[in-house]
């Protein structure tokens, strides 16, 4: 009798907490998203009128920022994958006794606050930094070109900030590959490229899926990189939600936008997991 109850008793406090502070807020957010301002009320006072057109209005008004969020997040994810895969591979197979040390190095930048690092990028890429004058002297960029306040800077910052989220899961699944399978592939006259395509990559797929999700999800909802490294022309949906909440006090629109963002991400993630065919995530 007691044995059957044990798991539920263990789950109870944690799930009660998650129910109150995760599920309930999401339900409440859904409710807020269809409210309208009270006629003659103060700013920030809303009543429930089940106005589902809020979603349409919010989306149409901000489709540019939505598109940008997903585009930037996609580019940052692809870049992070391109940087992380060889890095994770090198740590797993080519680093010998320095493996643990190199793994620590991947996580180490995390310990300096990510905001400090993002601001550091702003200053490195800014007019007073060393990058812009150097590139101008070599002639790679023209005198009037700047690097900060551009889409380039935002995507670069996002790629940078989410890099360890990509590298760690990739490492975890590449490290599990038995090097003998790679040798066997070579023995069977596969060249390096074929071995990678037919053996290494399929075996590391769980890491690729986990890494891309862990990068794409926070990247799509991010607004810090766009706020620090971008300009009004690089605003993402996160910036809009933030300003609706704090500056305009338009809770229903902010809620509708949050919900649309979450739904879009969940749909994309589900499609992606189906396509990539991994069930190991949960």
């Amino acid at each position, binding site marked *: 009798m007691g044995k059957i109850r044990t798991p539920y008793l*263990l789950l109870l406090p944690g799930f009660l907490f998650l129910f109150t502070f995760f599920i309930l807020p999401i339900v409440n957010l859904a409710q807020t998203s269809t409210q309208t301002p009270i006629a003659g009320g103060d700013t920030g006072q809303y009543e429930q009128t089940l106005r589902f057109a809020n979603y349409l209005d919010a989306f149409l008004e901000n489709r540019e920022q939505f598109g940008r969020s997903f585009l930037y997040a996609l580019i940052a994810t692809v870049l992070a994958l391109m940087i992380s895969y060889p890095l994770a591979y090198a740590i797993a197979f080519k680093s010998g006794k320095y493996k643990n040390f190199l793994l620590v190095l991947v996580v180490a930048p995390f310990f300096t606050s990510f905001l400090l690092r993002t601001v550091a990028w702003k200053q490195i890429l800014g007019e007073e930094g060393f990058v812009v004058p150097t590139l101008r002297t070599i002639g790679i960029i023209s005198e009037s070109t700047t690097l900060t306040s551009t889409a380039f800077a935002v995507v670069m910052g996002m790629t940078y900030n989410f890099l360890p989220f990509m590298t760690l899961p990739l490492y975890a699944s590449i490290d599990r590959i038995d090097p003998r399978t790679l040798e066997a592939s070579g023995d069977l006259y596969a060249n390096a490229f074929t071995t990678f395509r037919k053996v290494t990559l399929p075996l590391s797929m769980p890491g690729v899926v986990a890494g891309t999700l862990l990068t794409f*999800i926070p990247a799509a909802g991010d607004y810090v990189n766009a706020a620090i490294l971008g300009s009004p022309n690089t605003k993402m949906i996160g910036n809009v939600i933030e300003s609706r909440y704090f500056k305009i006090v338009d809770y229903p629109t902010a*809620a509708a936008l*949050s919900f649309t963002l979450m739904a879009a991400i969940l749909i994309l993630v589900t499609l992606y997991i189906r396509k990539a065919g991994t069930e190991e995530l949960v």
Partner: protein
Amino acid sequence: MSKKTVDATIPTIPLTARFQRWFGRNLIRVYMVLAFTYLFIPVAYTFAFSFNDSGKSNLIWKGFTLDNWKNPCGAPEVCTALANSIKIGLLATIFSTILGTMIAFAIGRHKFKGRSTSNLLIFLPMATPEIVLGASLLSLFLVFKINPGFWPTVIAHVMFCISFVVVTVKARIASLDPRLEQAAMDLYANEFQTFRRVTLPLVAPGIAGAALLAFSLSFDDFIITNFNSGTVTTFPKFVYTAAARGIPAQANVIGSGMFFLALAIVIAGQFVNRRKAR
């Protein structure tokens, strides 16, 4: 190793060809060095500018000084923000580690109805963008007329840390050899004794890792904190607000200090593990 022998036996190959060969063989290592350079550029920059004799705005290099390190609390509010971050981080770590470890044991050790739903409930907060977590929680607090501040921030942090604790501890539980517990039972240990003397010590490193992860997630969080903290300033929030008018060099000191402290903890942990393994 093999590179050396090749170089020694075929000394007549021209230099460029030798370089090409070396490059081809070490391409991935060169790539690794470049990737690490990218990762560490802003860390090095932050560290370097912690020594800047900058005055108010730490934008341009004005000269070397140790003053910032001697007096890290010199800039107004920097240390209040840091203290808040540490307090919130510790509380969030304690609560999320306890709740998360219990869930991890339930899911990792028991078969029960609703197990896959439980897994889903753990996965969902990790799949939700931070801004949605932060905004929805703030909406709830507003409905119940709870003002954002210290405790709402702690609650928010516990909420998003739990899932990460569960995943970390669950992985450790999954890697346990069940025969160790069976052996304990065979030696007449009852369930509680087995848990306390065998299971818990074996899972402990996983729990410690989860706690460290929770603390660093909480300490570095900005988005969710910004929504739920009201007038309470945390360290990331301080940096964000200060970014507009120039961050004082003391913030760089604290960032760099945290970096070296965490590195020291990790290295010490590895050292202890290695000694234990002997």
